[in-house]
């Protein structure tokens, strides 16, 4: 068996293992969905009236703010789900079975790849579920073409991939689940200080660079453009560059952590 088919075969075995975990213990995945759904409802129904004045089209139309909000909530869902990945990697690394995998003639990276692919699938599924809630409370993306829909889905998957590799590194570098959950918190905090809830230009001047130059803002703006037809501009390329950069960084970081000598 050549090394590529070995990698594919072992990684899909590991993926099946992780999906089995997720299916057997769905409570963690579902708990992670609570935060984005709660934020969606809170901002749409409670803060929406006030917040909508900041989005720039002057009106206080709740459905306009809901449309503005949903792309940000979608990527916040991805961030939250990857915190779960960091935690489950940290838990898994403390399991004796990982040492067993290391003594077997299997593809070295398959353990991590299984986690990453599983997590990306979980992220996409979570975004679909949160999206369904959004549609149920009135979100519509009728202007988007099927190609834009596919691109939107692809963007969600790409962001998931990038954030998951970072989250896996965070999980590997954490001694236990609690530490992993703390270390991975930026994945949830970053979307809160992005353009998810209010446009960057509505923020205080000193804060605008923080919101502007971070991965979530260009990704959210791109998703917004794809779903709602707003201007994307160079944000699309910025989003893709951020994602590829983070994915590569996370991959190198994670594999070097995984391959370091075990005590």
């Amino acid at each position, binding site marked *: *068996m050549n090394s590529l088919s070995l990698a594919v075969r072992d990684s899909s*075995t590991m993926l099946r293992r992780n999906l089995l*975990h997720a299916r057997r213990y769905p409570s963690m995945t579902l708990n992670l969905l609570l935060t984005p759904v709660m934020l969606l409802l809170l901002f749409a129904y409670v803060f929406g009236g006030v917040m909508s004045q900041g989005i720039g089209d002057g009106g206080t139309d709740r459905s306009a703010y809901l449309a503005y909000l949903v792309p940000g909530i979608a990527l916040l869902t991805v961030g939250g789900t990857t915190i779960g990945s960091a935690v489950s990697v940290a838990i898994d690394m403390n*399991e*004796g079975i990982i040492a*067993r995998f290391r003594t*077997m003639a*299997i593809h070295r990276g398959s353990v991590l790849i299984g986690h990453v692919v599983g997590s990306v699938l979980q992220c996409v599924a979570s975004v679909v579920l949160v999206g369904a809630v959004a549609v149920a409370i009135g979100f519509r993306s009728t202007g988007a073409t099927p190609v834009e829909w596919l691109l939107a889905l692809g963007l969600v998957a790409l962001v998931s991939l990038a954030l998951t590799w970072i989250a896996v590194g965070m999980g590997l570098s954490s001694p236990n689940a609690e530490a992993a959950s703390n270390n991975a918190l930026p994945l949830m905090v970053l979307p809160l200080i992005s353009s998810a809830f209010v446009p960057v230009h509505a923020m205080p001047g000193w804060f605008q660079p923080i919101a502007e130059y971070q991965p979530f803002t260009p990704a959210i703006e791109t998703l917004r453009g794809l779903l709602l037809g707003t201007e994307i501009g160079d944000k699309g390329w910025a989003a893709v560059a951020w994602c590829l950069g983070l994915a590569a960084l996370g991959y190198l970081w994670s594999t070097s952590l995984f391959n370091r000598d*075990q005590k």
Partner: protein
Amino acid sequence: MASSVMPTSKTAPPPAVSAVGLRKSYGGKTVLDGIDLRVPAGSVFALLGPNGAGKTTAVKILSTLVAADGGQAQVAGHNVATSPDGVRAAIGVTGQFSAVDGLITGEENMLLMADLHHLPKREGRRVAAELLELFDLVEAAGKPAQSYSGGMKRRLDIAMTLVGNPRILFLDEPTTGLDPRSRHTMWQIIRRLVADGTTVFLTTQYLDEADELADRIAVLNDGRIAAEGSAQELKRLVPGGHVRLRFSDPSAYGKATAFWPDATRDDEALALRIPSDGSQRALRTVLDRLDSAGVEADELAVHTPDLDDVFFALTGPGVPRHATGIQPPTTHTDQTAEDAR
């Protein structure tokens, strides 16, 4: 220089495991200080030592989990440092801490192993079912492994290791924490595997376990092999068997000492240690002499040498290295000291 560890004949097959001058330290603390090992294919080898002697580290190096700082090792003909995947394809490892996936069922654990060994679906199912049967886990097969008892987890652990049909099996303290019944079951399992031609490398801190199972035993103490040989050879290392007579009457003690001038005297306890093999004949001689002298001992105890004596003699605190002088392994200080730098 490896050949000086143990005499070998020219026709001997290549050893399943061999190591020369293995060294490892963690954060400045030396855990393995140049050990040599040689395990013939098809035999059972026990690495015996107290906690912290370096047993687990030795297993981790030989099973490619950690890299040695110095020395080299070959397992199944492959160098552990340069050809780890060759080693991994030939070995099965059951570590000290259970290596099962607690979140999925016993059967799912077995099928996971079958998939990772690239067995065809049908074949994998067959092997899994057979091993679950063999290890008496059929009833528990559908339950999550984290609900298993310690003994069941250990059995599942070894069953998973056997899915790949390994030629060489590493068992790190396979019976630690098991109740006596599970321990004996584990011993039976190991004997059955050996009968099928598997080479077994086990570590243990139990002397009776090494005595029961192993063809050869190496006593590891403080990162060095203190002695190596069969159980019989090791028992010969320590002055062992004796009959201990204790008296309460000093005059009876005095009379008895005259009869056994070669005995070791303990004047304070009024006790004599008479060298003896503990056989019926030897005991009768002692009793007959006591009768003919007309003295009566208050207490008579027979002590036969066992691995405990060897163990305590070799691993006690303050024991100088290679104190026994019998079959000391060659030291590699010259070579490995350079490696360390």
